[in-house]
Protein backbone atom coordinates (compact mmCIF):
# COMPACT_ATOMS: atom_id res chain seq x y z
CA UNK A 1 0.00 0.00 0.00
CA UNK A 2 2.79 2.43 0.91
CA UNK A 3 1.48 5.89 1.21
CA UNK A 4 2.37 8.35 3.85
CA UNK A 5 0.13 9.56 6.67
CA UNK A 6 -1.11 13.10 5.93
CA UNK A 7 0.74 16.10 7.30
CA UNK A 8 -0.97 18.16 10.00
CA UNK A 9 -0.23 21.66 11.25
CA UNK A 10 -0.40 21.97 15.02
CA UNK A 11 -1.61 25.01 16.95
CA UNK A 12 -1.34 25.18 20.72
CA UNK A 13 -2.77 27.54 23.29
CA UNK A 14 0.08 27.91 25.71
CA UNK A 15 -1.80 29.54 28.57
CA UNK A 16 -5.36 30.37 29.37
CA UNK A 17 -6.35 33.59 27.69
CA UNK A 18 -3.74 33.40 24.91
CA UNK A 19 -4.35 32.65 21.24
CA UNK A 20 -3.43 29.33 19.69
CA UNK A 21 -0.02 29.54 18.04
CA UNK A 22 1.50 27.45 15.29
CA UNK A 23 4.13 25.21 16.89
CA UNK A 24 5.01 22.79 14.10
CA UNK A 25 3.76 19.83 12.12
CA UNK A 26 3.46 16.07 12.35
CA UNK A 27 1.99 13.08 10.56
CA UNK A 28 -1.13 11.22 11.60
CA UNK A 29 -3.68 8.96 9.90
CA UNK A 30 -6.64 11.13 10.95
CA UNK A 31 -7.64 14.17 12.98
CA UNK A 32 -8.18 12.27 16.24
CA UNK A 33 -4.74 10.70 16.09
CA UNK A 34 -3.26 14.04 15.06
CA UNK A 35 -4.59 15.54 18.30
CA UNK A 36 -3.13 12.70 20.31
CA UNK A 37 0.20 12.85 18.51
CA UNK A 38 0.30 16.60 19.03
CA UNK A 39 -0.25 16.04 22.74
CA UNK A 40 2.62 13.57 22.86
CA UNK A 41 5.00 15.48 20.60
CA UNK A 42 4.37 19.14 21.36
CA UNK A 43 3.25 19.31 25.01
CA UNK A 44 5.92 17.15 26.66
CA UNK A 45 7.09 20.10 28.73
CA UNK A 46 3.72 21.26 29.89
CA UNK A 47 3.41 23.70 27.00
CA UNK A 48 -0.29 23.63 26.35
CA UNK A 49 -3.86 23.82 27.54
CA UNK A 50 -5.57 23.41 24.16
CA UNK A 51 -4.67 21.95 20.77
CA UNK A 52 -5.94 22.62 17.25
CA UNK A 53 -4.93 20.46 14.31
CA UNK A 54 -5.47 21.30 10.64
CA UNK A 55 -4.49 19.09 7.78
CA UNK A 56 -1.76 21.01 5.97
CA UNK A 57 -3.47 20.79 2.56
CA UNK A 58 -6.48 22.69 3.91
CA UNK A 59 -4.50 25.81 4.70
CA UNK A 60 -4.88 28.66 2.24
CA UNK A 61 -2.06 31.18 2.34
CA UNK A 62 -1.20 34.51 0.76
CA UNK A 63 1.28 34.33 -2.09
CA UNK A 64 4.72 35.78 -1.34
CA UNK A 65 4.59 37.70 -4.64
CA UNK A 66 1.55 39.62 -3.44
CA UNK A 67 3.32 41.01 -0.41
CA UNK A 68 3.33 44.52 -1.89
CA UNK A 69 -0.37 44.97 -2.65
CA UNK A 70 -1.41 42.85 0.35
CA UNK A 71 0.54 44.48 3.14
CA UNK A 72 2.27 47.68 2.11
CA UNK A 73 -0.86 49.85 1.82
CA UNK A 74 -1.32 49.62 5.58
CA UNK A 75 2.14 51.00 6.23
CA UNK A 76 1.05 54.56 5.41
CA UNK A 77 -1.98 54.54 7.70
CA UNK A 78 0.03 55.79 10.63
CA UNK A 79 -3.01 57.51 12.15
CA UNK A 80 -4.31 54.07 13.18
CA UNK A 81 -1.65 53.95 15.88
CA UNK A 82 -1.96 55.77 19.19
CA UNK A 83 1.58 57.16 18.93
CA UNK A 84 0.44 59.31 15.99
CA UNK A 85 -1.30 61.67 18.39
CA UNK A 86 0.55 63.99 20.72
CA UNK A 87 -1.32 64.41 23.97
CA UNK A 88 0.20 66.87 26.48
CA UNK A 89 1.58 65.26 29.61
CA UNK A 90 -0.73 67.41 31.77
CA UNK A 91 -3.74 65.55 30.38
CA UNK A 92 -2.52 62.38 32.03
CA UNK A 93 -2.72 58.82 30.83
CA UNK A 94 -4.91 58.23 27.79
Amino acid at each position, binding site marked *: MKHEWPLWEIFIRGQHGMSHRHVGS*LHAPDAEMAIK*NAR*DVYTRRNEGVSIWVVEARHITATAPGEKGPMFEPSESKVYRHPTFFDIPDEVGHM
Partner: protein
Amino acid sequence: MAGVDKDMLAQFLLRMGDNTLILGHRVSEWCGHSPVLEEDIALANTALDLLGQTQLWLGYAAEVMGDGKTADDLAFLRDAWDFRNLLLVELPNGDFGQTLMRQFLFDAFHSVLLGRLLQSSDQSVREIAEKASKEVAYHVERSADTVVGLGDGTEESHARMQAALDLLWPYVGEMFASDDIDRAMAAAGVAPDPAGLRDEYDALVGKVMAEATLSIPDSSFAHKGGRTGATHTEHLGHLLCHMQWLQRAYPGANW
Protein backbone atom coordinates in the same frame (compact mmCIF):
# COMPACT_ATOMS: atom_id res chain seq x y z
CA MET B 1 -6.93 2.41 58.14
CA ALA B 2 -6.44 0.76 61.47
CA GLY B 3 -5.94 -2.95 61.42
CA VAL B 4 -4.19 -3.28 58.06
CA ASP B 5 -1.50 -5.90 58.19
CA LYS B 6 1.74 -4.12 57.19
CA ASP B 7 3.09 -7.10 55.31
CA MET B 8 -0.09 -7.47 53.36
CA LEU B 9 -0.20 -3.76 52.55
CA ALA B 10 3.39 -3.98 51.35
CA GLN B 11 2.49 -6.93 49.12
CA PHE B 12 -0.38 -4.95 47.62
CA LEU B 13 1.95 -2.00 46.93
CA LEU B 14 4.52 -4.29 45.34
CA ARG B 15 1.84 -5.63 43.03
CA MET B 16 1.01 -2.10 41.93
CA GLY B 17 4.62 -0.98 41.59
CA ASP B 18 5.94 -4.12 39.95
CA ASN B 19 3.24 -3.94 37.28
CA THR B 20 4.20 -0.39 36.36
CA LEU B 21 7.93 -1.10 36.65
CA ILE B 22 7.97 -4.16 34.43
CA LEU B 23 5.55 -2.78 31.87
CA GLY B 24 7.34 0.56 31.83
CA HIS B 25 10.60 -1.28 31.19
CA ARG B 26 9.07 -3.31 28.38
CA VAL B 27 7.59 -0.26 26.70
CA SER B 28 10.88 1.61 27.00
CA GLU B 29 12.49 -1.12 24.89
CA TRP B 30 10.70 0.37 21.89
CA CYS B 31 12.48 3.70 22.10
CA GLY B 32 14.18 4.27 18.75
CA HIS B 33 12.56 1.25 17.08
CA SER B 34 8.89 2.16 16.58
CA PRO B 35 7.05 2.11 13.25
CA VAL B 36 6.85 5.90 13.06
CA LEU B 37 8.34 8.80 15.03
CA GLU B 38 5.01 9.92 16.45
CA GLU B 39 4.44 6.45 17.96
CA ASP B 40 8.00 6.33 19.27
CA ILE B 41 7.44 9.54 21.18
CA ALA B 42 4.02 8.45 22.45
CA LEU B 43 5.32 5.10 23.70
CA ALA B 44 8.14 6.83 25.54
CA ASN B 45 5.57 9.06 27.25
CA THR B 46 3.65 6.00 28.39
CA ALA B 47 6.82 4.37 29.71
CA LEU B 48 7.80 7.56 31.52
CA ASP B 49 4.39 7.75 33.20
CA LEU B 50 4.63 4.13 34.32
CA LEU B 51 8.16 4.52 35.65
CA GLY B 52 7.14 7.66 37.53
CA GLN B 53 4.27 5.73 39.11
CA THR B 54 6.73 2.99 40.01
CA GLN B 55 8.78 5.41 42.07
CA LEU B 56 5.66 6.30 44.04
CA TRP B 57 4.33 2.76 44.57
CA LEU B 58 7.68 1.20 45.39
CA GLY B 59 8.68 4.21 47.45
CA TYR B 60 5.58 3.76 49.57
CA ALA B 61 6.11 -0.01 49.69
CA ALA B 62 9.63 0.56 51.03
CA GLU B 63 8.27 3.00 53.60
CA VAL B 64 5.68 0.48 54.80
CA MET B 65 8.30 -2.26 55.00
CA GLY B 66 10.26 0.08 57.22
CA ASP B 67 13.66 -1.53 56.89
CA GLY B 68 15.39 1.49 55.37
CA LYS B 69 15.13 0.35 51.76
CA THR B 70 14.34 2.65 48.82
CA ALA B 71 12.26 2.25 45.67
CA ASP B 72 15.52 1.67 43.79
CA ASP B 73 16.52 -1.12 46.19
CA LEU B 74 13.22 -2.84 45.52
CA ALA B 75 13.50 -2.42 41.75
CA PHE B 76 17.15 -3.35 41.35
CA LEU B 77 17.96 -5.77 44.14
CA ARG B 78 15.11 -8.27 44.32
CA ASP B 79 15.25 -11.54 42.45
CA ALA B 80 12.51 -12.92 40.22
CA TRP B 81 10.63 -14.76 42.97
CA ASP B 82 10.13 -11.51 44.89
CA PHE B 83 8.38 -9.76 42.02
CA ARG B 84 4.60 -9.44 42.25
CA ASN B 85 3.66 -8.24 38.77
CA LEU B 86 1.09 -9.84 36.49
CA LEU B 87 2.56 -12.34 34.04
CA LEU B 88 1.01 -10.28 31.24
CA VAL B 89 3.33 -7.32 31.69
CA GLU B 90 6.55 -9.34 31.67
CA LEU B 91 5.81 -11.04 28.35
CA PRO B 92 8.12 -9.95 25.53
CA ASN B 93 7.03 -7.09 23.29
CA GLY B 94 6.52 -9.19 20.18
CA ASP B 95 5.49 -7.05 17.24
CA PHE B 96 4.01 -3.59 17.64
CA GLY B 97 0.50 -5.07 17.59
CA GLN B 98 1.26 -7.44 20.45
CA THR B 99 2.77 -4.59 22.46
CA LEU B 100 -0.27 -2.39 21.94
CA MET B 101 -2.68 -5.25 22.67
CA ARG B 102 -0.85 -5.98 25.93
CA GLN B 103 -0.91 -2.27 26.69
CA PHE B 104 -4.63 -1.99 26.15
CA LEU B 105 -5.48 -5.13 28.13
CA PHE B 106 -3.45 -3.75 31.03
CA ASP B 107 -4.55 -0.11 30.64
CA ALA B 108 -8.19 -1.16 30.79
CA PHE B 109 -7.58 -2.99 34.08
CA HIS B 110 -5.33 -0.25 35.41
CA SER B 111 -7.86 2.49 34.69
CA VAL B 112 -10.73 0.61 36.34
CA LEU B 113 -8.60 -0.19 39.39
CA LEU B 114 -7.18 3.32 39.78
CA GLY B 115 -10.69 4.72 39.59
CA ARG B 116 -11.52 2.71 42.72
CA LEU B 117 -8.28 3.60 44.46
CA LEU B 118 -9.31 7.26 44.38
CA GLN B 119 -11.57 6.27 47.28
CA SER B 120 -8.94 4.33 49.19
CA SER B 121 -8.94 4.61 52.97
CA ASP B 122 -5.17 4.99 52.76
CA GLN B 123 -4.20 8.59 52.03
CA SER B 124 -0.94 7.74 50.26
CA VAL B 125 -2.68 5.25 48.01
CA ARG B 126 -5.30 7.87 47.24
CA GLU B 127 -2.66 10.45 46.34
CA ILE B 128 -0.75 8.13 44.05
CA ALA B 129 -3.99 7.05 42.39
CA GLU B 130 -4.97 10.65 41.82
CA LYS B 131 -1.81 11.35 39.84
CA ALA B 132 -1.73 7.99 38.07
CA SER B 133 -5.39 7.90 37.07
CA LYS B 134 -5.04 10.99 34.89
CA GLU B 135 -2.06 9.51 33.11
CA VAL B 136 -3.73 6.16 32.67
CA ALA B 137 -6.96 7.70 31.37
CA TYR B 138 -4.87 8.90 28.44
CA HIS B 139 -3.02 5.59 28.08
CA VAL B 140 -6.23 3.61 27.75
CA GLU B 141 -7.70 6.07 25.28
CA ARG B 142 -4.61 5.93 23.09
CA SER B 143 -4.08 2.18 23.25
CA ALA B 144 -7.79 1.54 22.61
CA ASP B 145 -7.68 3.78 19.52
CA THR B 146 -4.62 1.98 18.22
CA VAL B 147 -6.12 -1.46 18.83
CA VAL B 148 -9.28 -0.39 17.02
CA GLY B 149 -7.29 1.17 14.18
CA LEU B 150 -5.12 -1.88 13.63
CA GLY B 151 -7.95 -4.37 14.18
CA ASP B 152 -10.12 -2.57 11.65
CA GLY B 153 -7.19 -1.67 9.35
CA THR B 154 -5.84 -3.94 6.64
CA GLU B 155 -6.22 -7.67 6.37
CA GLU B 156 -2.67 -8.08 7.67
CA SER B 157 -3.08 -5.74 10.61
CA HIS B 158 -6.37 -7.42 11.53
CA ALA B 159 -4.76 -10.86 11.47
CA ARG B 160 -1.84 -9.70 13.58
CA MET B 161 -4.11 -8.10 16.17
CA GLN B 162 -6.30 -11.18 16.39
CA ALA B 163 -3.17 -13.30 16.90
CA ALA B 164 -2.03 -10.92 19.64
CA LEU B 165 -5.39 -11.11 21.39
CA ASP B 166 -5.42 -14.91 21.16
CA LEU B 167 -1.93 -15.04 22.64
CA LEU B 168 -2.52 -12.59 25.47
CA TRP B 169 -6.09 -13.35 26.51
CA PRO B 170 -5.08 -16.26 28.77
CA TYR B 171 -3.07 -13.74 30.82
CA VAL B 172 -6.09 -11.55 31.57
CA GLY B 173 -7.73 -13.78 34.16
CA GLU B 174 -4.87 -13.33 36.62
CA MET B 175 -5.84 -9.69 37.12
CA PHE B 176 -9.05 -10.75 38.86
CA ALA B 177 -7.87 -13.83 40.76
CA SER B 178 -8.10 -12.49 44.29
CA ASP B 179 -6.49 -13.95 47.37
CA ASP B 180 -6.17 -13.24 51.10
CA ILE B 181 -4.17 -10.09 50.49
CA ASP B 182 -6.89 -8.68 48.26
CA ARG B 183 -9.55 -9.58 50.78
CA ALA B 184 -7.59 -7.90 53.56
CA MET B 185 -7.16 -4.76 51.45
CA ALA B 186 -10.86 -4.75 50.62
CA ALA B 187 -11.83 -5.24 54.27
CA ALA B 188 -9.68 -2.28 55.28
CA GLY B 189 -10.99 -0.16 52.42
CA VAL B 190 -7.50 0.24 50.97
CA ALA B 191 -8.30 -1.32 47.60
CA PRO B 192 -11.20 -3.12 45.94
CA ASP B 193 -11.29 -6.88 45.61
CA PRO B 194 -10.19 -7.25 41.97
CA ALA B 195 -12.73 -10.02 41.41
CA GLY B 196 -15.38 -7.33 41.62
CA LEU B 197 -13.86 -5.34 38.75
CA ARG B 198 -14.29 -8.02 36.12
CA ASP B 199 -17.70 -6.92 34.80
CA GLU B 200 -16.59 -3.36 34.24
CA TYR B 201 -13.42 -4.61 32.58
CA ASP B 202 -15.26 -7.01 30.31
CA ALA B 203 -17.67 -4.28 29.25
CA LEU B 204 -14.83 -1.93 28.32
CA VAL B 205 -12.72 -4.55 26.57
CA GLY B 206 -15.76 -6.03 24.82
CA LYS B 207 -16.71 -2.66 23.40
CA VAL B 208 -13.23 -1.92 22.10
CA MET B 209 -12.73 -5.38 20.60
CA ALA B 210 -16.10 -5.16 18.84
CA GLU B 211 -15.07 -1.84 17.34
CA ALA B 212 -11.74 -3.40 16.39
CA THR B 213 -13.63 -6.28 14.72
CA LEU B 214 -11.67 -8.72 16.89
CA SER B 215 -13.07 -11.82 18.61
CA ILE B 216 -12.33 -12.45 22.25
CA PRO B 217 -11.28 -16.11 22.61
CA ASP B 218 -13.94 -18.36 24.02
CA SER B 219 -11.84 -19.68 26.90
CA SER B 220 -11.61 -18.75 30.54
CA PHE B 221 -8.26 -20.43 31.09
CA ALA B 222 -5.89 -18.15 32.98
CA HIS B 223 -2.14 -18.37 33.54
CA LYS B 224 -1.44 -17.39 37.12
CA GLY B 225 1.32 -16.94 39.63
CA GLY B 226 2.87 -13.55 38.93
CA ARG B 227 0.97 -11.41 41.40
CA THR B 228 1.24 -14.01 44.17
CA GLY B 229 4.88 -14.71 43.39
CA ALA B 230 4.19 -18.42 43.01
CA THR B 231 5.83 -18.40 39.60
CA HIS B 232 6.85 -16.21 36.70
CA THR B 233 7.57 -16.72 33.03
CA GLU B 234 11.19 -17.33 32.04
CA HIS B 235 11.14 -13.90 30.44
CA LEU B 236 11.24 -12.04 33.74
CA GLY B 237 14.72 -13.28 34.63
CA HIS B 238 16.14 -12.02 31.37
CA LEU B 239 14.47 -8.67 31.82
CA LEU B 240 16.02 -8.41 35.29
CA CYS B 241 19.43 -9.31 33.89
CA HIS B 242 19.29 -6.12 31.87
CA MET B 243 17.59 -3.95 34.41
CA GLN B 244 19.70 -4.92 37.41
CA TRP B 245 23.05 -5.41 35.71
CA LEU B 246 24.86 -2.31 36.94
CA GLN B 247 23.54 -2.49 40.49
CA ARG B 248 24.57 -6.13 40.70
CA ALA B 249 27.96 -5.74 39.02
CA TYR B 250 29.01 -2.73 41.12
CA PRO B 251 27.30 -3.19 44.50
CA GLY B 252 26.81 -0.04 46.52
CA ALA B 253 28.03 2.33 43.81
CA ASN B 254 26.43 5.74 43.56
CA TRP B 255 25.15 6.54 40.06
